[in-house]
């Protein structure tokens, strides 16, 4: 690691106002794109690539990196304010962010999300800058059995994001897994459950499903209560969380940032999984798991630190191995290729002039994000004071546009609506949406790698426990499933008992 090269690049990026401007434009547009449901960081980067053609490649990349970081952070804003994740990676933020907003603490929740994102993003960017080659070596050790084990571990999180009933959470999860079996199966080369529809050949597209699960179902609930719910007055003071509040979640932020970076660095797993794993772990290891989901700052800090940690992490395999860490880095890889810097093991040796500015730009983007986020938090929080009768139709419109814009498809608008209706009724009967989403993200990974591993081992399931990394994830996964099951069950019972005591006292 040539430290002087990094510092030199840092100086160049930091003190050139034009470079700074590009990072700023990237971050700001990223936050907007991220905050609008249906427009994701992936799409934003893809849309901006043509604009970088005429630019100096480094400046173009700085803008794209800013957009990546800003986009992942921006998703938390709509997650908190309207309960709709702006990007898939903000889905876990909904769980506690939106209840905070309902308590009138939207401003503080956004402040917390900003600080956690900054913290996670900076940790991720620093790890990327200093440990890329070492982490890439670990990533290479991941073969099909390891991917299966990691996805299995990830599915274990379903228990912690199930809300009140673990059974209903599991049913939701299985429903999600079933949806992922629709479409062309790349392993056998056959279509499954497509009913001869070309549109369904690619399966149920992820973003429209996300919009259905969280967007439409929220809108329908909003319509249902549009006239009875009292307006939430959002408190606009004390946006920046107090030092003590940050201190109390500091340990969670550190843990989430590190886990996020690592998960991001595994090819094929991105910010969304990182956020869920971070949230799940924070809840599992918490002394008060029953408080999660009711609107606590720790439940915002964990996923936001985790998903922004994953931004730096996801860059690692893309830069060092030429394998994108997630969907956004896949697009970034295309951008690098088109500027004739082919990512891969030789990029560091052949093009230090682009690698080091990437590191510096990624770090700088975090600071810009912190500034823009905290500066804008009051404004974002005041948006919630807009009349529900105005807001709900606007969100509805955004959902329609968002599901269409992913690939300019009316079919997707329909898919999204149907899933929205199903999700509304599931929600009504207490089936949570997050396990469905988690299953949609992890389903293909768990299924394909299970089958792939068994092809390699000629059907012998021992392959999963004779390889150390795979065995470790399987056992940690089982451990987490068992401990979170008992802890959450006990916490729920405790809460029930307290509720019945309170009830009794009220009657007495």
């Amino acid at each position, binding site marked *: 690691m040539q430290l002087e090269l990094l510092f030199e690049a840092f100086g160049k990026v930091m003190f050139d106002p034009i470079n700074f401007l590009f990072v700023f434009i990237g971050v700001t547009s990223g936050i907007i794109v991220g905050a609008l449901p249906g427009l994701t960081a*992936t799409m934003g980067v*893809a849309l901006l*690539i*043509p604009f970088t*053609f005429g630019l100096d490649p480094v400046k173009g990349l700085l803008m794209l990196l800013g957009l990546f970081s800003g986009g992942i952070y921006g998703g938390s804003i709509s997650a908190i304010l309207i309960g709709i994740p702006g990007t898939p990676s903000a889905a876990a933020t909904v769980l506690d962010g939106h209840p905070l907003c309902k308590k009138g603490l939207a401003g503080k929740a956004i402040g917390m999300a900003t600080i956690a994102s900054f913290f996670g993003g900076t940790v991720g960017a620093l790890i990327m800058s200093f440990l890329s080659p070492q982490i890439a070596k670990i*990533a*290479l*050790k*991941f*073969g*099909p059995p390891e991917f299966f084990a990691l996805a299995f571990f990830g599915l274990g999180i379903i228990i912690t994001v199930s809300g009140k009933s673990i059974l209903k959470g599991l049913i939701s999860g299985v429903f999600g897994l079933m949806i992922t079996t629709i*479409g*062309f*199966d*790349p*392993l*056998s*080369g*056959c*279509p499954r459950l497509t009913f001869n529809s*070309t*549109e*369904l*050949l*690619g399966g149920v*597209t992820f973003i429209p499903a996300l919009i259905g699960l969280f967007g439409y179902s929220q809108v329908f609930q909003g319509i249902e209560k549009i006239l009875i719910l009292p307006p939430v007055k959002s408190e606009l003071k004390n946006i920046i969380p107090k030092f003590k509040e940050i201190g109390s979640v500091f340990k969670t932020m550190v843990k989430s940032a590190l886990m996020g970076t690592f998960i991001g660095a595994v*090819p*094929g797993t991105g910010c969304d999984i990182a956020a869920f794993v971070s949230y799940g772990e924070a809840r599992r290891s918490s002394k008060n798991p029953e408080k999660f989901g009711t609107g606590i700052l720790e439940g915002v800090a964990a996923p936001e630190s985790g998903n922004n940690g994953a931004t730096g992490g996801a860059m690692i*395999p893309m830069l060092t*191995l*030429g*394998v*994108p860490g997630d969907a956004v880095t*896949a*697009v*970034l*890889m*295309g*951008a690098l*290729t*088109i500027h*004739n810097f*082919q*990512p*891969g*093991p*030789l*990029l560091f040796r052949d093009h230090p002039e682009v690698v080091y500015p990437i590191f510096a730009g990624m770090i700088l983007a975090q600071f810009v994000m912190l500034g823009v986020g905290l500066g804008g938090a009051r404004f974002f929080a005041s948006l919630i004071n807009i009349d529900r009768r105005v807001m709900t139709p606007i969100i509805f419109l955004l959902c329609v546009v968002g599901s269409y814009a992913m*690939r*300019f*498809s009316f079919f997707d608008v329909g898919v999204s609506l149907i899933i929205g209706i199903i999700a509304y009724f599931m929600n009504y009967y207490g089936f949570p949406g997050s396990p469905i989403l988690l299953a949609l993200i992890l389903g*293909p990974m768990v299924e*394909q790698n299970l089958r*792939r591993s068994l*092809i*390699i081992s*000629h059907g012998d399931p021992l392959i999963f426990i004779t390889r150390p990394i795979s065995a470790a994830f399987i056992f940690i996964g089982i451990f987490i499933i068992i401990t979170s099951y008992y802890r959450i069950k006990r916490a729920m019972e405790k809460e029930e008992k307290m509720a019945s005591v309170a009830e009794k006292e009220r009657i007495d």
Partner: protein
Amino acid sequence: MLKRMGLIFVIVAGLITFTSPDGMAQKFPAKDITLIVPWAAGGGTDTIARALVKNAKNYFGVNVNVVNKTGGMGAVGMGAVATAVPDGYTVGLITFQLSTYRMMGLADLSYRDFGLIQLLNQSPASISVAADSKFKTLKDLMEYAKKNPGVVTAGHSGAGGGWHLALASIAVREGVKFNFVPFDGAAPTRTAVVGGHIAVATTGIDELLQLYRAGQVRILAVNDTKRHWLFPDVPTIAEAGYPNPKIIYDWRGLGAPKGVPADRMQILINGFKKCFDDPEFKKLAHDLGLPLAYRDPKGFEEFLKEMEETLRPALESVGLLKEKK
């Protein structure tokens, strides 16, 4: 009064019908052209499409804008091109999968549904192993695999894809049985071979450029009739001892919906030829190792016809031929 209105209507209608095609044809293209890419932004096909039309304004006078319409193994985007309004303003990138949809029973779509514009590239497959593999030559590999049927794991980027079929057809001819391990795309396949999770990988040769230069893979052969300029020491499949008369290439080309007026079609054909000859595009393709292969509409059609004939037995050999006879 009514009569006069009717007369005016007839005249106006006549004017519109008779004058407008001519008037518009002179100006074609009068607005930006849309190029539909059936694969995701940032992927190999998308990169090539964007590079191709980067300087399109110089040749068409208007921009050619890339729109990614993904899904259904490319069938959604290619289907959208085939069914677009044939006014010449919508064209599409068509890719290898178009040669297999009908035979694999995935979609009722083939090159016959398009007005072909040009062939862009035909990329050969490669057979590679990790740098520290015990297989030094293709002969080592094939002989070992012959003695140990079903033992050697061979990763490819998807069942029924060009690379899978390329290796499968060689294996069938040589009486060798590989344990095929399908991955989802080229990137995970090549990582798996470098990481030692599979013994052999079959991918496009250009997809291995970085790993090859970094000395992390050994490419045993390129499935082509001539060596690749960026891989001068990689033998062709014949040089490696396994002559292959019917070579499966991964191809990309351009197509328009059927029924675009002939004069507009000619403008598209000429314009995209100029994009193809653009020095910047040529240089990028050269540096990326992408073997460009221009063919005019007629040559393209012949190429696609031959390709289907080559693919049919290959698909049959891996049990994926579902063509309705």
